[in-house]
């Protein structure tokens, strides 16, 4: 159980990280009329941050006990 307990805690920490990434004031930083490679900064941020979060979740979830 010790292994899964650590996994649960790490995933919960990722949840908190996600809540921070997708709320005020972090979102306000990106809510500006700039573009990255032609894509509005805010939308680019959403998908990059979201994808990275999923990648981290995969890493934590699939790590062997």
């Amino acid at each position, binding site marked *: 159980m010790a292994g899964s307990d650590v996994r*649960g805690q790490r995933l919960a920490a990722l949840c908190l990280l996600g809540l921070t990434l997708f709320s005020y004031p972090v979102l306000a930083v990106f809510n500006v*009329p700039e573009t990255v490679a032609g*894509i509005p900064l*805010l939308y680019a941020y959403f998908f990059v941050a979201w994808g990275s979060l999923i990648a981290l*979740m*995969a890493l934590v979830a*699939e790590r062997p006990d």
Partner: protein
Amino acid sequence: MLGTSVVILVSFAYLGLLFAIAYYADQRADAGRSVIASPYIYSLSLAVYATAWTFYGSVGRAADNGVGFLPIYIGPTLMIALWWVVMRKIVRISKQNRITSLADFIASRYGKSALLGGMVTVIAVVGILPYISLQLKAVSSSFTTVLQYPEIAAPAALHVSLPQDTALYVALILAAFTILFGTRHLDAAEHHEGMVAAIAFESVVKLVAFLAVGAWVTWGLYNGFGDIFERTAADAQLKPMLTPFGGVGGDYSSWIWLTILSMLAIMFLPRQFQVTVIENKDEKHLRKAIWLFPLYMLAINVFVLPIAFGGLLHFPRGTADADAFVLTLPMSQKQELLALVVFIGGLSAATGMVIVETIALSTMVCNDLVMPVLLRLRGLGLNQRKDLTGLLLGIRRGAIVLILLLGYVYFKIAGEAYALVATGLISFAAVAQFAPAALGGIFWKGATRRGALAGLAAGFGVWFYTLLLPAFARSQWLPAGLLEHGPFGIEFLKPLALFGVSGLDQLTHAMIWSMVANIGAYVGVSLLHAPSAEEHRQASLFVDVFTWPGEARFWRGTASSPSLFNLLARFVGLKAASEAFRDYARAHGVERPEADADLVHFVEKQLAGVLGAASAHIMVASVVKEEALTLEEVRTMLDEASQIVVYSHRLEQKSQELERASQELREANARLTELDRMKDEFVSTVSHELRTPLTSIRSFTEILHDNPQLSLAERERFLGIVIKETERLTRLIGQVLDVSRLESGRVEWHESLIDMREVIEDTAASTSQLFRERNVRLERNLPSRVPKVRADLDRIVQVVVNLLSNAVKFIEPERGRVEIAVAEDHGFLRVDVRDNGPGISAEHQEIIFHKFRQAGDPLTGKPQGSGLGLYISRRIIEHSGGRIWVSSRLGDGACFSFTLPLAG
């Protein structure tokens, strides 16, 4: 290509294909070779979350306010990160208690309360109606839109009279399809393998369809993402969409509330609970689902913005419904095949949701609403009926039809007032009301049935008043004045600005008030009353599910085995009941099961799989005479059970400690035995070594004694030998004493600063006689200044003497040469004693430092020393913090070296 007959034909072909997949999966499941026992199928089945709302509505939402569609998918991603803690627990609880639905879960937690189960069911059905109506609206309007081809119909043109109302037909067809799908037979475990397989397939279809149209819009209609966003930025009307917060996208607080709402929805939508918990085959599947399902949501959202902005740029304002862009964009470019694919994708999104949702709701309606009532009505004689499986199936089929028709009615009443997403969010807010009772129930033992009832009632009431009533009012089914002036003109109670709180969007407003009411009543009422015995027991089973020692039973009473069997047979059928009893008897190793607490519990659990916990409890109670347990007794039982856990834990610790202790003892014993053996060996070697000089002394003194006529020269020779042997004996005894003192630690060390130069000069002087005798040259190679070391002077002298005398002893006289050198070596002082003697073979280089071991074969070569000198030297050098070793090659001399740490 997009004619009516083609579209209808393709639709039915698709539904037929779904049915075939479900049929195949069911067959495989019956054969024991499940196709859905895979984390990938499990993850895909979770994607039933993406409905027509996602498929059509997200684009509409994005076209309206930019980012508003995203929290619906980011929220679940965040929640899923908590699943390893929360959902794993719910799955474990549900498996152990054979939970059949969300209502069953909550009712079971709060003392198998039929009232609570019924309440959850009512809230779920009423709350989900807008959501189902959304699917009907999406399917029927996509159907109508496709049939308009090549015209692109404006939203207003879609109103039709009842006989041509596709929504009604869609509802009826879906009802028939769901009945075929989900209620072909009664599964005691409430598993629908065929349904899950079909849902997983639908998830693939809708994803592929959406990605296809997204890619076509992005790279076919426009020149990639950059092109679309560039044109959007160039359009004055659309430009604000690119920085939506604080403008078109609302403020950050409504964004947060949408995220929270979606976090709760992913857990408590009846269909999500069904696929995540009830249909879960293996807890471990969660591990893959934790990232695969969010990945699916990410993928299906990538093209939402390009399609939304593409649609807004493409069609003149107001000529096309943004909810239908996915379909109308390909149609406007005569992409008939793509439009058909999109239509099927939307159909799969909607059917998946409707099938799972209505099956989950019908199970709840049957198990937690209708059956408890029917079973209580003794007049119906249900208790006497032989086989009730038909009745159960009938109730479920009726519920499916009823739910879909109610969804249709809602669509007619309020469906036109809101866009797809806004309609769906009303349902999200309804199921969010389950969160306090369900989440609180698995972590807080103090929560009670009354608390859950009060919380749900309060939350649902506020939801009804602030979200559902305004929806009716907006569609002119209720007077619009209700919204503007409040009920009976009481402004204070306006549904959209309750207690005068305004300035929030409708959803945030409703969520805040309903959650305040819900959590407040839940916690407050729970704390007011103590839980009953039954509640206390269930609370422990739920909260402590991971630490519980197997299954706990709390039952006392009398029952008969045949009556229990008959009861089970009535609900699951004779065949299944016989099988269950046979398995039970085999598992318990008995011929016929005895009617004890175990069997009663077993039967209740089997029944719970069909009827739900509350009804099963009522039924079992009807055939057994149960003695009511008091709260005190349940507490005692629980305490005993947890005591057992504590004891067994302690016992385990103790036995581990014992094992460690005995292991240590074994090792100590082995060490002692070895020491004993070494002592014996030592004594025998010492005796042997002492006897050699003693024997020779004795024989020479005997010769002297017995032969008085010996010449003076001979006498002197013999006496010389006796003196030499005596000296050897003295030396040997001195060394043995040294060894025993060193080993027992009784040596007194007098440490002082030593000048190694002086030591070597003195030693050379004192051993010069030895060198002269054997005519060996001693060369000293000493630097003019040598750093001092700290050690016991006498002992170090002893070491140097030993090394020098060894060198002389083993060397060939006349040609021999011994060199002694001192040098500094990395913080140590190093002394080398090099000779040109016979050398020492590699195998002996370590052994010679051991007690009584000498180089050279002890059998042939006469030992030339005691075999203790080097051993003692090593003990001395190591005690002083240095190292002693020899480097040599056979026939090439030897070099003994030792080091001592520099003082300072």
